[in-house]
């Protein structure tokens, strides 16, 4: 048994030697190829390096172009936004002129009615009454605002509330409610003011006074030391009227 083992070991060693000899020869052949491949790889690397440089150059160029386009777009956008403001300003002016015209027309209608009624025709009675109501709301609103400016806040509040109650469908109805709230706010009666501002937001959600009323609700909560509701109201304001001046105010105050 031991003899057999020795034979196998010898045979294995001899085999290994033979194999090693063979292997050494293969390695020599591969080295030459290796060198060639190495050169090819170097050439490829150089090629890739060159490509990379040109790609980077292109990229830089692209970025430059993109930045220029970006800047142009910014300028364009800012011009657009500016022009939009100018157009909206023109619209406001047109609206003002239209209102002025409408007032003149109302006055003329009243005179026409009088002339006709003097001549015995009273067919325009209905129109005239409506026209007079509109004029009255504006005049009464002006009186209430003058009382507010004269610091007679209680009187002004009653006048605003009465106007709101009597002319709930008038264009100034939300303004009346808002200013009634302001009368409370300026006297630091925050709870009462809060209710009135809330009514402006809920009853007239599409009116002009919505953002201001919501912002003031936040200030009422601040006055009542209710920070949680203050922040919630202002967050709602930012999402509901994101482009309003008041949303900017709320962002500045909440640090958003």
């Amino acid at each position, binding site marked *: 048994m031991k003899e057999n083992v020795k034979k196998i070991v010898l045979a294995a060693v001899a085999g290994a030697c033979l194999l090693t000899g063979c292997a050494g020869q293969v390695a020599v052949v591969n080295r030459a190829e290796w060198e060639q491949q190495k050169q090819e790889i170097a050439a490829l690397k150089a090629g890739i390096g060159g490509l990379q440089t040109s790609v980077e150059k292109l990229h830089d160029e692209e970025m430059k172009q993109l930045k220029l386009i970006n800047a142009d777009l910014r300028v364009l956008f800012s011009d657009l936004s500016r022009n939009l403001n100018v157009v909206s300003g023109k619209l406001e002016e047109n609206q003002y002129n239209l209102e002025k015209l409408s007032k003149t027309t109302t006055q003329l209608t009243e005179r026409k009615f009088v002339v006709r009624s003097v001549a015995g025709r009273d067919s325009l009675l209905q129109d005239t009454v409506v026209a007079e109501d509109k004029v009255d709301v504006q005049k009464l609103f002006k009186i209430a605002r003058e009382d507010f400016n004269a610091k007679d806040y209680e009187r002004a509040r009653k006048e605003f509330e009465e106007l709101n109650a009597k002319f709930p469908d008038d264009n100034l109805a939300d303004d009346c409610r808002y200013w009634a709230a302001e009368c409370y706010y300026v006297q630091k009666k925050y709870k009462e003011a809060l209710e009135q501002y809330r009514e402006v937001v809920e009853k007239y959600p599409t009116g002009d006074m919505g953002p*201001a009323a919501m912002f003031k609700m936040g200030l009422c909560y601040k006055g009542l030391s209710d920070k949680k509701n203050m922040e919630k109201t202002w967050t709602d304001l930012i999402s509901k009227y994101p482009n309003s001046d008041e949303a900017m*105010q709320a962002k500045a105050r909440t640090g958003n």
Partner: protein
Amino acid sequence: MLLLLLIAISVIQVSSPAEELFLESTSSGIPKMDIAVVDFVRKNLGPGSTGAAKPHEVIVNDLKLSGRFNVFPMNTLDTVTMHKKNIAVFIEGTIDQSKGNTIFECFLHDAYSLNLITGKRFNVKDNAVRKAAHLFSDEVVYQLFGEKGIATTKIVCTMRGPKGKDVCVLDYDGYNPVYITRNNYINLTPAWSPDNQAVYYTSYRDKTPALYKTFIYTGQTVRLTPNAMLNFSPTSNPIDSRIAFASTVHGNSEIYIMEGDGTDIARLTFQGSIESSPCFSPNGYEITFTSDRTGSPQIYIMDSEGTNVRRLTFEGKYNASPSWSPKGDKIAYQSMVEGVFNICTIDIEGGAVQQLTTKSGNNEHPSFSADGRLIMFSSTRAGASDLYIMNADGSNQTRITTGGGYEFPEWSGR
């Protein structure tokens, strides 16, 4: 001012119940009271006195400027002429300068009954005669109209100096200038504190345009804005002494508000446009300001929290420098008409515009008197910029400074 008074719509029923008649009446101007001022009788002239003190002339000027009187100066007391001219009241008095000081007595009489309405005796140094005469003018207005006059109020403005512009305080009639700054730098846009004890203004004295507060009687000066950007157009809240101002601290000019000592700054406007020239309403609750958010400078109103912004002016391409009337019903501003600035007023509600100046040159920076009856402004109608006073309806425009270089006037409270 042309006051259009729609007096009444009276309904006269004759045959038809719908028969109506409109009565429309127009009236121009505010009725004025006729008053005579008799030259004061000079009793004695002491060795040191010049005899230059003429308190009656100061009183005549005050009553004329007040816009409440037709003033008839007289050399001697002549009741017959007064009765012919239907003059209701007259002022007479005496001056005694024999004992160093000026002692003068003034009396206001009813011209018909000759009863004394009020009388005052002043014992003052020569340089205080004008002030004493102003006090009597205010007393006359109070006795006849039940409202205090404005003859003792003051003006703060800028005055061109040798190297820069200085802030100075004048009597309302342009006399007695007192310099608040004398630093050879540019000092601009002065405004009164509500108690009339201090003046806020912009100064380049520390190289950057910052806001300062100077106490006019002690001269103590405090810097209010620490930033290195442009801070200008301060205005103080008449109720709580907070200050609103314009600043470029966030890039473009926006309106900010802070406490009177410069702390607790809050931003009020967030537009990408130029916002400037804030001015508080008399109840301190609202702010009027100039903004070019719609392409051209126009007047806007917001409340002092920065909410409820609304546009006030729609006529004209360039409206700026708004100033709120003490009664709260009007705002005066400068408006560009045919290439030059003119002073206009606008009703807060209703927006009725009235142009008050039409003279050539620029008429700028209007400011109301404390009784709301007069407006001070600067004008280049005579060449250099001087200060003028007019009635709030545009009548009686009177130049009160000469020599030029006066700008940014603001009238003090009473």
